């Protein structure tokens, strides 16, 4: 339009070619606008110009165009710069066409003066539009830059977060490792104390040997040594008694073990002349022959047993006489034995401390860990003995080594009125083989070891069944409240087998009365009963007794009913019909204090005055069967990545679960965790979660309360 000279008088380029001038507004409006634009409104035209960033210029010096002239300028609107026309864009982005056309129009209308052959479509873009375009472009660039920066920042933050999380994971692992070390330390100290105690107690050369062991050996070997010795002593005792009871030796393993134990137990003095050593010889001969092929009866862990045992037998053969073979040579053997089984089979790690992997899954590290305790604490011996029995009964007989006699003697010396608590954690490992002690054993602690051994000896075959007996420091007193005689008899039997003393009530009324009269360690309460139901009875009982755990036995497990039980004061649920395992779980969960306390009371003073939780935790940890204690070598490799219980085949996750439970849950739950953990492949995390979920409500109060009370009781007993 601007190029159209016909409109010269109306519109033209400015003198500098950088603006256009509308000389006559009215004329422009009348003639140019209609031709070029759809509208005939000058104001709209001006508005359009503004939109495209054209600015009206007050041209004071140039008055040649008249008063009514309007001058518009745009950076990209130049007479000689057609391309810049392209840059003229609306401030609000629109099609370039309209910008172009508008610019064209304008450019055309102001192009006359320059005479440049500018076609409407190729006018140079004025400076103004391109300037604004540039401006926009810069803005865009800036935004893109900012965006990139933000992205970089986010990435950086992500990285940091990741680092933090990694750090935490490492931290956790280190804490776990620390815990393991703490366990080591504690058990070491316990052992030291025990060793000193034992040395003091024994007036035989044994004592000196004991201290010798402790002093001269580093922790692991001393550990294993003492544990092994304790084990052997007890085994020997058992087998001797079993033999006395007329058991026939059937198991070649046993024989070889005996042999081995005799040799291993060389550290022990033989106070008594060997009995029937001649008979043992042929057996040993048998065992040797049988060892390689002897089936590990009673559900032993692995065929490994025979292999290791034959190996041991071979080693031991050079020492046919039990009397005190030089201990140093023994230890390396033991250590090797321990290490070998450890590494070979994580599942069977517990056997480690036992030279030749003797009690394999029995002695398991769990039992062994209690080993140091058991060795040095009178009562503890007894219990370990009890646990070893099933196996020993298999090997039976023998017991005729001089060393074996000594252990019996020693045992009597040390046999306390209680069963060592530490042995309790054994039972998970012994799932395969413990036989059930007869009832009377549970009632008379001092006689029970022998009672047990005898009864077990007579029941040795039962080892095959997966009878599973927790060991109690003191037999738990359980009140069984059940109206159905069949269920009652069954439950009673289960409880007896578990080593509890039982009292019975046939309805809620009887239950309340009994609770009023006596103190029990645990109450199993049926719910549906005549005269007075279990829930009401519990409420009544809770009015005067807050400590005793009351477990509801019921076939109704609806959530609202469960809430009812808890809200009336019950501590846990045992669904009917219940399994032995279910019952044992409950017992362990709510009677852990019976194990722990014992240990605590026997722990040397320096260690005992610790808060319940931590001490229990650490003690329980010490009795942890894991390789952590049994195989210090493995521990040393623990750089935090390998959880101490990895030897058991437990995953890091499971171990960290345990730790979480340890740190977060009550002591008993934790113990259960540890204990449960030691049992074969247990689905532990869920178990723990279950137990926590079930018993958290009152567990802590109850346990602590009960613990306090029970501790007092124990003091008295001892």
């Amino acid at each position: 339009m601007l190029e159209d000279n016909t409109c010269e008088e109306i519109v033209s380029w400015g003198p500098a070619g950088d603006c256009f001038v509308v000389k006559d507004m009215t004329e422009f409006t009348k003639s140019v606008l209609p031709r070029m634009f759809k509208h005939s409104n000058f104001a709209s035209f001006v508005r359009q110009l503004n939109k495209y960033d054209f600015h009206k210029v007050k041209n004071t010096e140039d008055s040649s165009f008249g008063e009514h002239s309007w001058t518009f300028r745009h950076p990209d609107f130049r007479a000689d710069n057609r391309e810049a026309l392209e840059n003229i864009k609306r401030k609000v982005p629109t099609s370039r066409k309209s910008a172009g056309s508008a610019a064209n129009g304008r450019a055309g209308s102001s192009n006359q003066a320059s005479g440049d052959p500018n076609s409407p479509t190729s006018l140079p873009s004025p400076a103004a539009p391109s300037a604004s375009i540039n401006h926009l472009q810069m803005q865009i660039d800036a935004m893109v830059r900012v965006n990139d920066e933000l992205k970089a920042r986010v990435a950086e933050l992500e990285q940091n977060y990741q680092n933090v999380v990694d750090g935490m994971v490492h931290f956790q692992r280190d804490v776990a490792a620390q815990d393991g070390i703490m366990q080591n330390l504690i058990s070491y100290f316990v052992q030291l104390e025990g060793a000193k105690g034992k040395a003091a107690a024994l007036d035989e050369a044994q004592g000196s040997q004991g201290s010798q062991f402790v002093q001269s050996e580093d922790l692991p070997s001393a550990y294993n040594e003492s544990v092994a010795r304790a084990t052997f002593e007890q085994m020997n005792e058992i087998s001797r008694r079993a033999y006395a009871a007329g058991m026939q030796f059937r198991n070649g393993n046993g024989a070889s073990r005996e042999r081995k134990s005799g040799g291993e137990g060389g550290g022990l003095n033989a106070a008594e002349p060997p009995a029937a050593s001649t008979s043992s010889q042929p057996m040993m001969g048998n065992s040797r022959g049988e060892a390689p092929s002897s089936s590990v009866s009673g559900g032993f862990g692995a065929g490994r047993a025979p292999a290791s045992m034959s190996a041991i037998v071979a080693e031991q053969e050079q020492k046919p006489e039990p009397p005190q073979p030089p201990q140093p040579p023994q230890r390396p053997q033991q250590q090797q034995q321990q290490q070998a089984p450890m590494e070979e089979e994580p599942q069977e790690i517990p056997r480690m401390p036992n030279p030749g992997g003797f009690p394999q899954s029995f002695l398991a590290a769990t039992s062994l860990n209690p080993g140091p305790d058991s060795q040095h604490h009178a009562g503890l011996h007894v219990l370990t003995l009890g646990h070893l029995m099933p196996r020993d009964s298999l090997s039976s007989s023998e017991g005729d080594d001089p060393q074996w006699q000594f252990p019996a003697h020693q045992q009597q010396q040390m046999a306390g009125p209680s069963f060592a608590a530490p042995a309790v954690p054994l039972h998970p490992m012994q799932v395969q083989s413990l036989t059930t002690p007869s009832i009377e054993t549970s009632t008379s602690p001092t006689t029970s070891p022998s009672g047990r051994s005898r009864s077990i000896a007579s029941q040795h075959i039962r080892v095959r069944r997966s009878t599973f007996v927790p060991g109690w420091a003191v037999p738990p007193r359980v009140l069984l409240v059940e109206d159905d005689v069949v269920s009652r008899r069954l439950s009673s039997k289960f409880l007896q087998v578990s080593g509890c003393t039982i009292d019975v009530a046939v309805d809620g009324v009887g239950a309340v009365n009994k609770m009023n009269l006596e103190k029990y360690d645990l109450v199993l309460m049926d719910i549906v009963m005549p005269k007075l139901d279990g829930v009401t009875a519990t409420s009544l009982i809770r009015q005067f007794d807050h400590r005793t755990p009351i477990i509801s036995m019921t076939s109704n497990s609806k959530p609202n009913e469960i809430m009812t039980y808890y809200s009336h004061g019950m501590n846990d649920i045992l669904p009917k019909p219940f399994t032995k395992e279910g019952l044992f779980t409950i017992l362990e969960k709510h009677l852990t204090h019976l194990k722990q306390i014992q240990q605590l009371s026997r722990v040397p003073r320096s260690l005992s005055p610790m808060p319940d939780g931590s001490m229990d935790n650490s003690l329980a940890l010490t009795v942890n069967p894991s390789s952590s204690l049994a195989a210090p070598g493995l521990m040393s490799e623990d750089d935090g990545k390998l959880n101490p219980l990895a030897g058991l085949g437990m995953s890091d996750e499971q171990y960290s679960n345990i730790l979480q439970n340890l740190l977060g849950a009550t002591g008993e739950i934790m113990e259960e965790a540890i204990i449960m953990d030691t049992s074969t492949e247990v689905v532990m995390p869920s178990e723990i979660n279950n137990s926590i979920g079930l018993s958290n409500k009152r567990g802590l109060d109850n346990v602590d309360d009960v613990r306090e009370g029970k501790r007092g009781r124990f003091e008295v007993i001892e």
Partner: protein
Amino acid sequence: PQDGEEEIIDWETFNQILEMDEEDDHEFSISIMQNYFEQAVAKFKEMDAALCKKDLASLSSLGHFLKGSSAALGIQKVQHSCERMQHYGKLRDEDAGTDLSPADALAKISALLAVVKVQHYAAEKWLKDYFKTKFGEEV
């Protein structure tokens, strides 16, 4: 499972009981079973009486009771029937997921009682045979 039905005995539970026995001496499990047999017969009598009196509440609690003891021994057919009876007595048909009128409940219980008795005697016979052949013991 025989005939696609559940077996008479739930072995898992029953074995637990056998495990309590001494070797070659099944005194414990046998005496428990005898207790149970006597108890079941007594309960059946009570159920008959309650049925005559149309006492649904009693029938429910009797069912519950016998359910417990049969479950303890693993005599599962009887256990499940008793559980049904327990629910019927509460005017509830759990299998169908519906409620019952008292008349319906009584009718169902009446039929069920006959079935339970049959199941019980079958289990009793089975157990006696089992003990005889396996252990040479008379129950």
